[in-house]
């Protein structure tokens, strides 16, 4: 039994009528049958053709009959277990379960200037330690949690990232796919007896490039569960309307599901909604925008009707560059609305400006937010004991008092959340203790984690296997010319450092 995570104990928030859900569903099937998807992978197209899709070989376009799409959707299990390195951290994806996940980012931030900067190898491993120590963080995302660190060749980012998470945490992991990285992810997961949630990333609109399809074949072929991801930017590579963008997004996801289910029927899958409105001024996605959360809520409702687990990263993203008011309200709205509307995974801890920056201090702050949302999901217990009718009648009006009652001692811990770093002091206490903010407490907590937290290590045999696989990856990428000599020399300094692999 998966012990971690939260369970939503009430009906999910739904904002579409059944007719509206049906209209979006039918439009999605129409797009797949009329326009289809572009797939730059001959093997994928052959498999689709064999099962009744119309393939235009000149345009690499596959048009999918509605019957086949619905048949494949029905084959996806409504729940699946994702095995972690330590079984106590296994996840049971689907249903009313809600897990919180790391939010990855390209770079770290300087806490004085708030400017982005690349992290170091040691900072990466420290950040993984923080992830391992956050009690409400159940699932570790692809990447290190950064997209790399100083002196790390970009093609080694995912293999080194996977290794760092396996070394410094026993929580469940996922991986990305870039430059054949899934080959090494499969080997690493097998070496430690865990699962890795694979990644098949679409390129909107309606396109699958070769590497994404190849990753699907490899990961599904190896028997791992797969998440299919699409993320159009509304008004840029997807329609500006939330309904229209949901149609193209879902069409991409469904076409990925069709392929995976044809490769191996019954493959456990999860779908991810990574859509944002386009910032019509600056050109980037509008992270933390209410339009993104509306998209997620609609997405969660529709995919729950298919019985397929969901993940919604916009929940943990903000447009702010600082750990500030905007960062807090954007993330809180996103995470709570997603939790209420029935997503299964909320990437939250650590993210700042979309995928551009993150910081482990934010992981610690976000972990309190996750605790509060988890408490909300647990709902309200209404029993004779919780209603406490006899007690209320017994205490009566003033000078009646509840603080000294057994009922209070029994119930307050169930009803309240004990946050880790939120400032909840009275003014006198706050002034006496140095007027600290939640961020100050998070800094202290991080120092404590880095100084004292001991993750469960890999066995010597597993550690050797991980190192052998990394060596194989390095050799592979060097042979392919994807690690140049200059990059290799910089990387070598780390590999030969006495602090390797942790610093």
């Amino acid at each position, binding site marked *: 039994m998966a012990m971690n995570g939260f369970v939503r104990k009430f009906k999910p928030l739904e904002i579409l009528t059944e007719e509206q859900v049906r209209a979006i569903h039918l439009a999605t099937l129409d797009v797949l049958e009329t326009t289809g998807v572009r797939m730059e992978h001959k093997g994928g197209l052959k498999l689709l053709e064999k099962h009744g899709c119309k393939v235009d070989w000149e345009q690499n376009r596959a048009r999918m009959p509605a019957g086949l799409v619905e048949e494949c959707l029905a084959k996806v299990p409504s729940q699946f277990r994702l095995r972690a390195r330590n079984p106590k951290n296994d996840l049971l994806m689907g249903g009313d379960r809600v897990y919180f996940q790391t939010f990855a980012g390209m770079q770290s931030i300087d806490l004085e200037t708030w400017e982005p900067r690349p992290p170091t190898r040691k900072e990466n491993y420290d950040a993984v330690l923080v992830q391992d120590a956050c009690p409400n963080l159940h699932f570790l995302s692809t990447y290190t949690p950064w997209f790399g660190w100083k002196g790390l060749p970009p093609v080694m980012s995912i293999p080194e990232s996977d290794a760092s998470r396996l070394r410094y945490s026993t929580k469940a992991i996922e991986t990305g796919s870039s430059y054949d990285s899934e080959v090494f992810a499969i080997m690493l997961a097998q070496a430690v007896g865990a699962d890795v949630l694979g990644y098949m990333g679409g390129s909107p609109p309606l396109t699958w490039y070769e590497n994404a399809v190849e990753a699907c074949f490899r990961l599904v072929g190896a028997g791992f569960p797969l998440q299919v991801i699409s993320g159009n930017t509304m008004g840029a590579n997807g329609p500006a309307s939330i309904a229209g963008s949901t149609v193209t997004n879902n069409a991409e996801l469904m076409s990925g599901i069709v392929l995976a289910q044809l490769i191996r029927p019954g493959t456990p899958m999860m779908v991810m909604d990574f859509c944002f409105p386009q910032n019509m001024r600056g050109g*980037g996605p509008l992270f933390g925008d209410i339009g993104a959360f509306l998209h997620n809520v609609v997405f969660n409702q529709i995919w729950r009707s298919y019985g397929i687990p969901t993940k919604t990263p916009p929940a943990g993203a903000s447009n702010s560059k600082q750990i500030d008011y905007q960062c807090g309200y954007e993330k809180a709205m996103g995470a709570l609305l997603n939790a209420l509307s029935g997503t299964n995974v909320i990437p939250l801890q650590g993210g700042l400006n979309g995928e551009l920056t993150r910081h482990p201090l934010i992981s610690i702050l976000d972990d309190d937010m996750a605790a509060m949302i988890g408490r909300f999901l647990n709902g309200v217990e209404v029993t004779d004991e919780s209603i406490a009718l006899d007690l209320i009648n017994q205490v009566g009006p003033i000078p009646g008092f509840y603080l000294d009652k057994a009922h209070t001692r029994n119930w307050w811990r169930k009803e309240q959340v004990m946050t880790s770093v939120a400032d909840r002091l009275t003014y006198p206490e706050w002034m006496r203790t140095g007027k600290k903010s939640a961020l100050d407490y998070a800094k202290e907590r991080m120092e404590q984690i880095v100084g004292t937290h001991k993750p469960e290590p890999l066995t010597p045999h597993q550690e050797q296997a991980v190192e052998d696989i990394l060596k194989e990856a390095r050799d592979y990428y060097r042979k392919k010319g994807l690690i140049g000599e200059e*990059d290799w020399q910089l990387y070598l300094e780390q590999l030969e450092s006495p602090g390797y692999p942790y610093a």
Partner: protein
Amino acid sequence: MKRMVLGGLAEAVLAYDPEAATRWARQAVAEGIDPIEALNVLTDAIRQVGDGFETGELFLPELVGAAGAMQAAMPVLQEQIDRSGAVRQSLGVIVIGTVFGDIHTIGKTMVATLCAAEGFEVHDIGVNVTAEKFVDCIIATGADLVAISALMTMTVPEIRKVIRALEQKGLRDRVKVMVGGGGVTETFAEQVGADGYDPTAPGAAKLARKLVGK
């Protein structure tokens, strides 16, 4: 008639209407209007949209829509310019694209549009562009400046490859290199020896002007 045709061309850009732009460009050729003059009308119109974007009155959909209308009319006029042997006056020739492995297009398109609005002849060679293709297009167009975009951290090193390819072909001294995109930083730009970097599209267009000394 000439006034009506040139007015129609400008209107088409300001209405973000590529079909009308093509139609008016064809009409201009049919009426024997100087294609350079027609081109200048297009450039003035796109500059007007660029100014509106910079002052916050217009937004990306308008900017990209106007660029699309201009690009639709361009081949018709360019063909006529080539046929007549006239020389197009511009601030310079820019080749712009997103590096190999990266399919992000929006920032690159914004820079291309605003550079065209500044008065450059812009050749937008798209996304997922190899170093070899950058070099080939620079040679083919006689570009003065190449603008290289990369959004993803993992594809940023491709910028270095383009610059090296330019060096290997002996082109680096005559082509200015400007870099940008979400994954690019000023430090990186300095490290790879780019001539300029700007984090914003309007800034990049101004930078292009500065780099070619205009």
